[in-house]
């Protein structure tokens, strides 16, 4: 009786995942002397309270205020205005699209040589870091604040901001 070995093989499947665009960017160095900080407010609820509380707790530094959209890119004019300071603090990334544009606008400033600190709530910091990394800036400075921020009283937001001041101080290399 003739025996014939027949092997049944499944065809391979192709990988649907895309390769990533390879980018490597470095964040700008924070200068030893900081004279002016721009507070870049995306107008998310209570972002202004966080930024104002930071301003009130750092003496001897000039603060400027710039507003930007939350779920969309800042205009060139807004970016240029924020870039006039030695450093920019962006707030607030506490949802998907606003975190996206806090990070992507921060990277635009970094590319201009302006160091940034992006304040994001802890539910979105992992995403923020991954997005920064995908866009080539693995070492973008992200400052985590406890989620949620929206819907809280002014006092509660200030309480949460107080907790992040030591980390901010450390990032800035100055005492508040």
């Amino acid at each position: 009786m003739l025996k014939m070995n027949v092997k049944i093989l499944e065809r391979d499947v192709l990988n649907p995942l895309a390769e990533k665009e390879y980018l490597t960017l470095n964040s700008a160095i924070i200068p030893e002397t900081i004279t002016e900080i721009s507070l870049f407010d995306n107008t998310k609820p209570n972002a202004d309270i966080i930024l104002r509380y930071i301003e009130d707790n750092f003496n001897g530094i000039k603060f400027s205020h710039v507003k930007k959209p939350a779920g969309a890119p800042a205009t060139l004019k807004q970016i240029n205005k924020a870039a006039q300071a030695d450093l920019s603090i962006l707030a607030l990334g506490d949802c998907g699209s606003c975190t996206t544009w806090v990070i992507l606008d921060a990277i635009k400033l970094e590319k201009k040589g302006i160091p940034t600190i992006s304040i994001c709530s802890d539910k979105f910091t992992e995403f923020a870091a991954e997005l920064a990394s995908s866009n080539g800036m693995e070492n973008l400075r992200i400052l985590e604040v406890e989620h949620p921020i929206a819907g809280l009283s002014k006092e509660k937001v200030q309480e949460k901001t107080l907790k992040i001041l030591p980390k901010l101080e450390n990032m800035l290399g100055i005492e508040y």
Partner: protein
Amino acid sequence: MGKFDKKTQQNISNDICGCFIDDLIGENIENKTSNDRLCNSHENDLEVYVDPDIEKISHDFYMRKLTDGLPIIPPTRDKVDKFLQYTDHDPDELIAVLQPKQGKATIEKVAINAVMAGCIPAFMPLIQHIISAVSQERFNLPGVNATTHPTAICTILNGPISREISINSGAGCLGPGNIANATIGRALRLCLMNIAGAVPGIMDHATMGSPAKYSFCFGEDENVNTWEPLHVERGFNQDDSTVTVMAVDSPQNVNDHRSTNAEDLLDTIIDTLSVAGCNNSHVPGELLVIMGPEHAQTILKNGWEKTDVKKYIHENTAISVELGDRGGRKLDDQWIDNDEVKLTRSPDDVIIVIAGGPGKHSMIAHGFGTSSDSVNIPLKLKTGKLAKSIQDFKS
């Protein structure tokens, strides 16, 4: 043992030994013992390739977060190659880099995801153009993909190619039952997940998402005698074919069986549109009105042009400042007019298309506000020439 004769066959795969079955069984077959193999040059006499098991591959891909949860068609080389026959680009050509992951949307990667979605090869040019459209800056794909808002991407097809592929623009066009409507939108979603990285909970942060994120694609009904269709309104000719992408919430029905004039009917549509809780309420932008043909006829009867309808909806779709200022972004003073917020910036933000079957219904969908504008692009060949048929893309 049959003679080993390579002959001159150039198309024999390396995966088989090169013997012909006639040779293998044709000579001295009676001398073979039951344990002998027919051919010594290969472990097996015959290797038969079959398509992978759909259930197994679907499960494997699902566990790797590569699907929307529904079964997929395994993207084998031969299936993907059939899609590559419907493009005039090379497989490794880059259509776009998609945010947030910065994924490279090459023609082949798009084809792989289209196969998975259950598309037929002829849909490839449409999906390729849809990817190109969503990557344009004014669409804001990074925001649309990552938002906590339940933002889906609606794709509207216009022109002869939409009819050539039999997209449904009639009864049930937003529901199940048509392969183009069901799978073109799904292919886009899989591309967003696997190329752009918009995996729910990872880089797609929709608090709840939306059923419209599975697939939201339909054609405009250009056969009914109404206003100029969307692509003509955007400057293309009637016989050009276009894709339009728009970031929207789930559609909501407007049931009006009783209005007999334009104003009454549009007031029902406006009342359905004028709600808090959408993005337009605090960052005014585009709105989509998918008007049923019968509703359109009611309006046309009064002699209203499309521009009149757009103007009327723009001027009257508004909510109170108090409700408007409850959205994600602080309500900007520029949008406040007499203690009200208009949900659109101008009549051009009111996007009207005709679709659907018999019945006194329309559909509305709020947009992504100022954060995203719709993109309408023509189906073009690599040469820049406008495509007149899907077959123009076939290589």
